[in-house]
């Protein structure tokens, strides 16, 4: 677990020794989505989704536009009611519960700050609705603004803030009521790249500090990778894969996930040898027999795809020693990007392959260039067979 989290870029807490809740047998989910379907006329936005999310999770719903992720989030907030199915939050069925009565708060993509109210009044809005006293509202607003480092801007109007400051006001406003579940709709979408990276880690710190369960909707796979404890990849109203960020990237369960998360080279082929813990695939596209070090369950001679990530491949002028998983091609194009170089290599079959290599040497003369004949090869356990 620690290793996988480390690979994904987020180290949850190094001292966790027990399994996360979603891996424990019989753990009670905090949020249970049961066979939720939402139709708008003939269009099915969310198609029979079931999902369990556990306490203190930071769950990311990742998908393109129109994948149904926002609709699902709006159903959790109560702005849309499901056509069928149930949502259970902390043991309570939310069917027919109005948005203002749910133990849920939402951070909107546009932030939806009230333009006529000051920062303080925006953050205090929800507390006043609870009927809390003036002094307590003031104190909790001040605490929350301090936490997002905006204590000095309480009197300003939203229009007088920068984008990053507005984002933090929106976060403070959605957290101040201490919701059991916080929904975030593209929380970093409107920020520029640098601010985004800073805010990502801030968001994780706040989530761990407060122990609130987060459900984040995003179309940005990088955001999902850094933030999430688990990712649910959505497409056409269904969740295609639910897994930890590491597993989504390294062990995608379908071509859609492999292509949506990161970039990938896919080689079409047919299985020629099926062992319990390995398979051999004859791929015309690759022009070679590919070896994959995990067993799969499929029909013999079935058409499958072998997925190899660009950074798992190595590129060389000389023929490597290894016989397996080695293909040959010509460098079409390359892009030097500082830390790494991206090559586009065309194989004999016409297939174009993307390879990224870290630039470990400073010498320009050693680098490959256009029209060079190269060998591409990868470790036996670096590729995945996709049947779907």
């Amino acid at each position, binding site marked *: 677990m620690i290793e996988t989290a480390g690979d994904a870029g987020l180290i949850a807490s190094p001292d966790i020794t027990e399994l996360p809740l979603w891996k424990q047998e019989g753990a009670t989910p905090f949020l249970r989505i049961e066979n939720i379907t939402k139709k708008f006329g003939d269009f099915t936005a969310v198609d029979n989704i079931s999902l369990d999310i556990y306490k203190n999770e930071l769950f990311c719903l990742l998908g393109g536009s129109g994948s149904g992720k926002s609709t699902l989030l709006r159903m959790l*907030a*109560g*702005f849309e009611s499901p056509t069928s199915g149930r949502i259970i939050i902390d043991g309570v069925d939310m069917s027919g519960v*109005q*948005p*203002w*009565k749910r133990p*849920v*708060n*939402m951070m*909107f993509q*546009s932030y*939806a*700050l*009230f*333009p*006529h109210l000051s920062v303080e009044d925006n953050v205090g*809005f*929800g507390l006043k*609705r*609870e009927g809390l006293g003036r002094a307590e509202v003031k104190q909790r607003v001040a605490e929350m603004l301090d936490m997002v480092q905006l204590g000095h801007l309480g009197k300003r109007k939203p229009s007088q803030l920068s984008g990053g400051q507005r984002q933090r006001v929106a976060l403070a*406003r*959605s957290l101040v*009521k201490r919701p059991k579940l916080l929904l975030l709709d593209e929380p970093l979408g409107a920020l520029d790249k640098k601010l985004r990276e800073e805010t990502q880690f801030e968001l994780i710190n706040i989530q761990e500090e407060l122990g609130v369960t987060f459900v984040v909707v995003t179309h940005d796979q990088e955001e999902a990778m850094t933030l999430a404890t688990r990712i649910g990849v959505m497409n056409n109203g269904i969740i295609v894969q639910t897994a930890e960020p590491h597993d989504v990237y390294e062990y995608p369960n379908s071509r859609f996930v492999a292509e949506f998360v990161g970039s990938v080279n896919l080689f079409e082929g047919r299985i020629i040898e099926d062992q319990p813990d390995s398979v051999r695939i004859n791929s015309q596209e690759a022009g070679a027999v590919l070896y994959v070090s995990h067993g799969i369950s499929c029909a013999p001679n079935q058409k499958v795809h072998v997925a190899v990530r660009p950074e798992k491949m190595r590129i060389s002028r000389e023929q490597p020693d290894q016989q397996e998983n080695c293909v040959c091609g010509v460098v079409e194009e390359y892009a030097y990007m500082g830390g790494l170089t991206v090559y586009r290599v065309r194989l004999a079959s016409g297939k174009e392959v993307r390879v990224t290599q870290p630039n470990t040497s400073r010498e320009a003369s050693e680098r490959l260039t256009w029209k060079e004949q190269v060998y591409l090869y990868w470790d036996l356990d670096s590729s995945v067979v996709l049947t779907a």
Partner: protein
Amino acid sequence: MSIQTGSAWVDGSGSRLAKYNFFKRINWGRASVFSVPTLWLAIFFFIPFLVVFKISLSESAIAVPPYTALLDWNAEDAYINLKLNLGNYLFLFEDSFYIDAYLSSIKIAAVSTFFTLLIAFPIAYLMARSKPSMRALLLALVILPFWTSFLLRVYAWMGFLKKNGLVNEFLMGTGIIDQPLIMLQTDFAVYIGIVYTYLPFMVLPLYSALEKMDMTLLEAAEDLGARPTTSFFLITVPLAVPGIIAGCVLVFIPAVGEFVIPSLLGGSDTLMIGRVLWDEFFLNRDWPMASAVAIVMLIVLVLPIMLIRNSQGKEETA
């Protein structure tokens, strides 16, 4: 830019250069755009205002035009006599008739504005919340009455409200009342007339304010625990305030000076300053007095509105 030009003036490195800069600094395109409305206001508003103000300081006379001149040129002694008559203004405040007329006009206008707002808000709200394809149609319906003459529409209300008019016929026919209601020539009819004719002026600014509103704000309010009624009063209404103010100003000001509606629908005891003005001009032929009435009305109306606008502007820039 301005600092550079300033230094050119100060060190005097050639007055020709400074002059050149000065002319260059005037943005002629911009100035010409501004000059059109400025000239319009000067010719059709400010100069007539000065003329009326001048007449208000003269005395009524049997002459053409029916007032005395302010300047009197005495050729023999080479004197110019300037005679300013403040008697009209003093008389305005001495005779309680005029003060009553002002107060009554303001009251009638204020009450009508309030009811116009009350009726216009739901209409504008519905329009702003309807489908975009419906909005154009609803907007056209709001503007539609303007295609008929204002006078005809007021006459139509006489037909509705008179003793054997449509309303009384209906109420008597259904047996709700057995005596016809006296509605025409009462303040009630004046209120109906003003509310009806000025409704579009209230609906349009309200609609434009409500239509601009971001609907996710209401979702955010609900998400934070506000019921729909609460979020209406805490979010929708405050965000519509610019529209409310614009609509109220557009209805209140012309309603105070309204002449046609009170004279057609109102009774003989409906006292409004517009009627007083008319009577002074056309019945008494006392142009100076009528002018004084008009000037005071302008001051009574314009001053508070300028104060409101000023405080609004300050709030926005603060």
